[in-house]
């Protein structure tokens, strides 16, 4: 069971390439790059990858590239880079080693290529082995009716007394900055009071109780009294400031009295 690969990728023999360059009909698109092509070509030597003739391999590859050129087949750049490198390798292998040259020898270059081929082959085999393993959902299975985990999230809200108080304080402070719109009914504005006072002061030269300036309809409900008193008092202060009114109070909490100031 475990020997059968489960996930097919192109079987290796899809790439069989005839040994002679004349028969070399390759769909380059089918290759995973030049290294893959080299690996495929190396298989035509029918020897262990370790014993492969790199020189022969290089020749095969270069023949292929030449043939492709002849057939005006466009090759991707990395195929040409590989061709150049292999040509260099071949020249190194053919020429006797120049002791003054500290570059790599042909053998060293061959070793590098052999290593890369071997490693790619190793990864390819590893991939096959991996795919040949028993797989979840194919050879072994998980629970068919997994039970739903009831996710119960308990949220603990934190709130300290300070938070609560700050929250309250925030509202109360905000009130002072909020446009004052609420409860027009019970609001007696300073403007109204001023206007009213100016009219009333016209024919008053005597000391009069501040409270007597309050409109009648504002003298019953305590709330309205308070609003009207405050506004009238504030208006009076404005008038005092303007010099048109005098103000007096005999003692603390006593009546506040005012009279029109003589203009002379």
């Amino acid at each position, binding site marked *: 069971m475990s020997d059968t690969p489960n996930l097919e990728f192109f079987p290796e023999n899809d790439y069989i390439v005839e040994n002679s360059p004349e028969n070399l009909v390759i769909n380059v698109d089918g290759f995973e790059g030049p290294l893959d092509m080299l690996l495929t070509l190396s298989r035509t030597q029918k020897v262990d990858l370790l014993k492969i003739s790199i020189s022969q391999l290089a020749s095969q590859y270069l023949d292929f590239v030449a043939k492709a050129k002849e057939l005006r087949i466009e090759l991707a750049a990395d195929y040409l880079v590989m061709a150049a490198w292999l040509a260099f390798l071949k020249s190194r292998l053919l020429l006797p080693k120049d002791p003054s040259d500290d570059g790599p020898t042909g053998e060293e270059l061959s070793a590098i290529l052999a290593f890369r081929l071997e490693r790619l082959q190793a990864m390819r085999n590893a991939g096959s082995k991996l795919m040949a393993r028993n797989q979840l959902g194919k050879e072994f299975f998980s629970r068919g009716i997994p039970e739903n985990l009831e996710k*119960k*999230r308990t949220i603990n809200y934190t709130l300290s007394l300070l938070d609560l108080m700050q929250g309250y304080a925030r509202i109360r402070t905000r*009130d002072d900055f909020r446009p004052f719109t609420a*409860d027009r009914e019970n609001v007696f504005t300073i403007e109204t009071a001023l206007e009213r006072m100016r009219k009333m002061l016209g024919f008053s030269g005597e000391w009069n109780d501040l409270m007597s300036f309050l409109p009648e309809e504002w003298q019953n409900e305590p709330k309205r009294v308070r609003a009207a008193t405050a506004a009238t008092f504030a208006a009076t202060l404005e008038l005092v400031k303007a010099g048109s009114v005098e103000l007096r109070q005999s003692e603390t909490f006593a009546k506040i009295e005012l009279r029109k100031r003589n203009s002379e």
Partner: protein
Amino acid sequence: MSDQTDKSSNKRKVGEVDQANLFEAPSVPEQIRMVEAILFASSAPVTVNELKSRMPQGSDPESALSELKLHYRTRGVNLVKVGDGWAIRTSADLSFLMRKETVETRKLSRAAVETLAIIAYHQPVTRLEIEEIRGVGVSKGTVDLLLEMDWIKFGRRKMTPGRPITFVVTQHFLDHFGLESAKDLPGLRELKSAGLLESTIPNMKDSVADINKEDADLSDNTDQPELFVE
């Protein structure tokens, strides 16, 4: 395992012998393994017929099932009959394990804190009054959350048109904050001296809060909300 093997000879019924010989039915322990695996992996309960059709010829899923039922009787999962099929299910007494409880600590939203604060300081207070004080609407979610947390509850109805329901804080709320009663909440003056209020607050407001504290128990005072809009 060994006792299952011993039983295998008894399990095979006389009438099945021929067939069993022909097709070499798996051993009883092996059949038990098969039923176990099929039931485990199936996405729905499996009938005896289906087991039979999937197992090698000559298999006797019925006796495998009764062996399995016995085997799982005391375990964390049990073999149960569902309709005319069989399934493996968590033992009922362990269902509490199928809950993943996570505790998350979260800060109460600003809206909730403010609403709670208003209820605490102004109780009993109607929703409309809360909205007037906050200057914005109070969402149902906020009220529900506070109710659910058992920090607020419904108070009695106000004697105003529409007889709106009021909110008051609960004993649980008092316990949580270590308060004897809502009257123990610091007044505005104390908040101010604690630096929690802007110093620009007119003095009048302090007295209002104090009035509120005194009035808190006088409750059904229709004037109350207005005290705070000045």
